[in-house]
C-alpha cells in the first residue's frame, strides 16, 4: 500500500547491489520507483523487470549523479512517468577509490566526495522543494560503517560518508516541522560487488561473523520510508552485524 500522500520514489545507483534491493523493497511497499543507473543499463532494466513482474511500477533512469543538471532532469522524468511528486529519495549512489592517505590522489579524493556527498546534497535540495509543499517527504542517505568506525585506506570514502551523516542531521532538523524525515543508514560489510575485495580482512571483526545482505539493508530503508517511522528523523541506523557497536 502506498503511504497517505501519493508520491513516487527515486533510488540512485539502483542497478545492482544495495540500491537494487532498496528499489525492489520500496516497490513492494507500493511506491512507484525510479531506478537510477549511471552506465549499467541492462542491470537497471532487469531490476525494473523484476519489479513490474511482481506487480509494482518502476522506470529505469540513466543519469550521472555528479552532473549538476541531473536532479532537475530526474525530477521532470519521474513526474512525467508516474504523474506524482517525488516524495521519497534514497541517496545510494556511491563509489570508492581506496588508498592510504600518503598516496591518495587529488582526483581520487575529488571523485569520491563529488559522487558520495555533493551529489547527495544536490539531490536532497531538489527533493525538498516538492516535499515542503506536500508537507510530507522521506529522505534516506546510505552512509557507511566507515563513517563511524575507522577503516585504513578509505579516508575519502569515510569523509564523504561521515559528511553524509552531518548533512542528514542538519537537513532533518531544518525540515522536521514539515512532516519530512531525513535519516541515514550505515551498512557494514554487505555482500556486493563493491565489497568483494574487502570481505576477507574485515569479516573477522564483524561480531555477527557474517556479511549482511542487500535485502537486510533494504528492509531498514523500507521502514524509514514508511509511515511507521514518521517520528524517526536525523537518525543513523547501523546495519552492520555489530561492527560499529
Amino acid at each position: 500500500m502506498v503511504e497517505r500522500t501519493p508520491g513516487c520514489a527515486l533510488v540512485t545507483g539502483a542497478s545492482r547491489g544495495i540500491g537494487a534491493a532498496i528499489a525492489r523493497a520500496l516497490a513492494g511497499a507500493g511506491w512507484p520507483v525510479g531506478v537510477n543507473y549511471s552506465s549499467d543499463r541492462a542491470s537497471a532494466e532487469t531490476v525494473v523487470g523484476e519489479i513490474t513482474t511482481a506487480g509494482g511500477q518502476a522506470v529505469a533512469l540513466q543519469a550521472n549523479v555528479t552532473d549538476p543538471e541531473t536532479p532537475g532532469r530526474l525530477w521532470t522524468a519521474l513526474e512525467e512517468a508516474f504523474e506524482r511528486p517525488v516524495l521519497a529519495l534514497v541517496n545510494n549512489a556511491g563509489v570508492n577509490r581506496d588508498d592510504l592517505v600518503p598516496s591518495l590522489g587529488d582526483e581520487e579524493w575529488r571523485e569520491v566526495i563529488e559522487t558520495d556527498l555533493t551529489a547527495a546534497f544536490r539531490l536532497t535540495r531538489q527533493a525538498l522543494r516538492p516535499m515542503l509543499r506536500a508537507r510530507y517527504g522521506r529522505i534516506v542517505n546510505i552512509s557507511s560503517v566507515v563513517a563511524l568506525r575507522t577503516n585504513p585506506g578509505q579516508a575519502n570514502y569515510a569523509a564523504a560518508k561521515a559528511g553524509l551523516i552531518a548533512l542528514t542531521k542538519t537537513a532533518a532538523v531544518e525540515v522536521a516541522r514539515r512532516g519530512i524525515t531525513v535519516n541515514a543508514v550505515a551498512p557494514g560489510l554487505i555482500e556486493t560487488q563493491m565489497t568483494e575485495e574487502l570481505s576477507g580482512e574485515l569479516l573477522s571483526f564483524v561480531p555477527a561473523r557474517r556479511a549482511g545482505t542487500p535485502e537486510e539493508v533494504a528492509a531498514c530503508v523500507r521502514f524509514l520510508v514508511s509511515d511507521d517511522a514518521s517520528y524517526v528523523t536525523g537518525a543513523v541506523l547501523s546495519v552492520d552485524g555489530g561492527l560499529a557497536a
Partner: protein
Amino acid sequence: MPALTAEQVQERVIEALASFGPEADQITRNATFEELDIDSLDLVELAQIVEDEYGIVLKGDDMKDLRSVGDAIDLIVSRQS
C-alpha cells in the same frame, strides 16, 4: 514578462503566506512575520514560489533581513529585471 505591479505582487504574496497558516485578513503590508508566526522555512518556500512564478531568484541572504510583509513585497518588486 510585463513588469509586475506592486498590487499584483502583494496579492500573490498574501495568498502564499495564507497557505502557511495565518488568516488572510491578518496579512497586511505592516504585519511582521513574527506576528504572523511565519518562520524562516516559510520564507524559503515563499522564495521558491517567487522563483517558480516570476523567475526572480531570492537567496537566503536576501530573505534574512525581511521583517514585514511589506519588506518582502518591496524586495520582489525591486528585483524585477
